[in-house]
């Protein structure tokens, strides 16, 4: 093995891959060769660093220089200046790491300073396709410890004591789930991993699988030992090709090393893993639908109880946890309960990964201790709202969650506080909205999603969500009445109470929470026939300010509906009957004389 003086880490997460990190890798290879550095400098493809907004990201060690938005043309400069002559290319550094003339460590930047990386600890640090690197950072030590020193009961007790709760959204005690599966009687048991991340905007599970797949394999083997299963399944959506490929490579490597298979670490314990691909139906993230899909049947939920811990895959006791939940397991075993419980709040221990999206500067993945406030996430870690706009609300929990309004921005983020204010943790998507977002439109967006994704098995969800969407559409078209709002609210409660599975039971949440905090916006749509944010097209009205209008006729010539008339050199007017609200006139006007209201 050769020792290298410098490592160049290139992000190979989905975000950076789509912004071109693969071509960077090739460019680095040829430039390094050109300069005779290929035996001194090592190229490493890693998982996601979290700062996806600034991708592709390249980090050079030992200096820890964090280059952002690197393109192919920049590679030559990095190789010739930094790698050959030792001069860091400041121009390309992530601007937050450069202060006056000094280069700060990445951990001191606002984006990373408040983060605490447990589930994401190896993402952006190791090469996910190399099992040796995972072992070098204490990988498989926890499995070794569990198999050689602990009984299954002791393992379960540690997980229980740690207070770890399901990271997929529900927040059920992981230790209890393990206990139920352990206690269930059965000649055969299974463990399964839910990697069917379906919430629009959430991508932490994908990033963990892409950046640290061995952590999931190790945790599932530990879970298998604890509950008495010898076979595991990872259910992952086929839309995550990079994650699937890396997991496949990781499973094969683990088998080669005997970390999966028969008699692991010379004990009686045998365990193996297989991948099952999902076709990307949102409902398959629901546990009973997921297990049905693994069995090869149509992915539809069934009533619970019996819970999967009693009757899961092929009727056998099955443990099902989410990717991020598993990513915490080995760390808890190695560092102990006390370490884990020192992070977070009284009832929500540890950290949570959030996918920051929407109107925020630092789009990407962040991992924070539970109990961090929304304000810290948005203003500090997220770097605030672009273009000096005002924060209006944050949406958490995807189509199952709700909106947190600006007045609740100091709410600590944990399972129970979020439920108390009508939202939920969900899998951790966090979409930030500013004053340009219409809350009725947001509710409509999520309803469109659930209507598409409802599996159709039960009536309240199949028909109820569709009726709900119809009313919302009516309101955004300016045809709603006050009775519609009441009817909608009643329908929401009916759907929640009578749907078969979590999809339907939570589908009305976006409507209910926007009604709770932004009722005035609904009323404005219904009574004043106005969309305060100016999003709903049907309610928009374009008018020409006669003071500013120079009478140049440019708008009239652009109008596809011939709705604008007037005489040259005197103010023009828009015929509201004919106007189709396309906005072409506003774009065309050189004097800023056309307003949208």
């Amino acid at each position, binding site marked *: *093995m050769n*020792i290298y*003086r410098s490592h160049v880490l290139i992000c190979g997460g989905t975000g950076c891959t789509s912004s071109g990190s693969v071509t960077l890798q090739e460019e680095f290879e040829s430039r390094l060769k050109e300069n005779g550095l290929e035996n*001194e400098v090592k190229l490493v493809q890693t998982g996601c660093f979290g700062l996806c907004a600034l991708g592709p990201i390249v980090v050079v060690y030992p200096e820890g220089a964090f280059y952002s938005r690197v393109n192919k043309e920049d590679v030559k400069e990095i190789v010739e200046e930094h790698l050959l002559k030792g001069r860091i290319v400041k121009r390309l550094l992530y601007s937050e790491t450069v202060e006056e003339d000094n280069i700060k460590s990445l951990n001191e930047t606002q984006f990373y300073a408040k983060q605490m990386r447990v589930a994401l600890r190896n993402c952006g*640090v190791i090469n996910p396709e190399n099992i*040796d690197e995972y*072992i*070098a950072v204490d990988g498989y030590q926890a499995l*070794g410890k569990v198999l050689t020193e602990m009984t299954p009961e002791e393992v379960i007790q540690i997980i229980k004591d740690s207070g770890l709760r399901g990271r997929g959204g529900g927040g059920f005690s992981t230790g209890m789930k393990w206990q139920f599966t352990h206690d269930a009687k059965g000649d055969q048991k299974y463990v399964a991993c839910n990697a069917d991340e379906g919430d629009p905007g959430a991508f932490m599970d994908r990033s963990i699988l892409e950046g640290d797949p061995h952590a999931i394999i190790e945790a599932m083997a530990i879970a298998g030992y604890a509950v008495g299963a010898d076979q595991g399944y990872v259910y992952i959506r086929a839309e995550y090709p990079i994650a699937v490929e890396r997991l496949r490579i990781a499973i094969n490597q683990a088998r080669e090393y005997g970390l999966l298979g028969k008699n692991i*670490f010379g004990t009686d314990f045998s365990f193996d893993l297989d991948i099952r691909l999902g076709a990307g139906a949102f409902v398959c993230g629901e546990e009973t639908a997921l297990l049905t899909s693994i069995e090869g049947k149509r992915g539809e939920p069934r009533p619970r109880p019996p819970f999967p811990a009693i009757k899961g895959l092929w009727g056998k006791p099955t443990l099902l946890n989410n990717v991020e939940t598993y990513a915490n397991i080995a760390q808890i075993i190695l560092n102990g309960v006390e370490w884990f419980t020192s992070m977070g709040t009284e009832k929500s221990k540890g950290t949570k990964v959030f996918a920051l999206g929407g109107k925020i500067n630092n789009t990407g993945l962040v991992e924070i201790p539970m109990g961090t406030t929304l304000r810290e996430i948005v203003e500090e870690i997220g770097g605030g709202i672009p273009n000096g706009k005002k924060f209006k609300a944050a949406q958490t929990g995807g189509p199952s969650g709700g909106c947190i309004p600006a007045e609740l921005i100091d709410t600590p983020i944990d399972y129970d506080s979020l439920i108390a204010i009508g939202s939920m943790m969900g899998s951790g998507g966090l979409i930030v909205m500013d004053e340009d977002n219409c809350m009725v439109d947001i509710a409509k967006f999520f309803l469109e999603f659930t209507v598409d994704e409802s599996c159709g098995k039960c009536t309240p969800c199949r028909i109820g969500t569709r009726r709900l969407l119809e009313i919302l559409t009516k309101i955004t078209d300016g045809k709603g009445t006050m009775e519609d709002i009441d009817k909608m609210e009643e329908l929401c409660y009916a759907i929640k109470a009578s749907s078969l599975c979590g999809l339907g039971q939570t589908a009305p949440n976006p409507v209910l929470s926007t009604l709770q905090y932004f009722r005035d916006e609904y009323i404005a749509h219904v009574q004043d026939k106005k969309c305060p944010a100016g999003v709903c097209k049907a309610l928009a009205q374009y008018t020409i300010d006669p003071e500013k209008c120079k009478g140049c006729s440019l708008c009239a010539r652009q109008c596809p509906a011939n709705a604008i008339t007037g005489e040259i050199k005197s103010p023009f007017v828009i015929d509201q009957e004919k106007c189709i609200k396309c906005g072409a006139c506003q774009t065309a006007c050189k004097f800023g004389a056309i307003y949208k209201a």
Partner: protein
Amino acid sequence: MKSLAELQEIRNRALSQVNLRKEREDGIRVVVGMATCGIAAGARPVLNAFLQEIEKRNLGNVTVTQTGCIGMCRYEPIVEVYVPGQDKVTYIHMSEDKAARVVAEHIINNQPVTEYTIGAEAK
């Protein structure tokens, strides 16, 4: 995988692969002058010699980096060694053999090789 010892063996072997990426304050740094002057005077073989010695002796806490011209081109190849808590030591006119001695005496045994330092030249 038949035993914990086997896992430990892989871990130790692989550690040098990732050690470089940890942000640490405690490690020893070897900085080689690699501007045009340094390279012309033969800094590259010196740098490689350091890397080979460090690998051979499996020193996990040493990083080797390069730097630009510090203005004393006539002394190149120049190598600076930073041991935490101690003054930096500047070696001049380095060669591959000298590099091996610096690793053995200074980095491992904490005894700077005085005769190679810039201070010795001044005397």
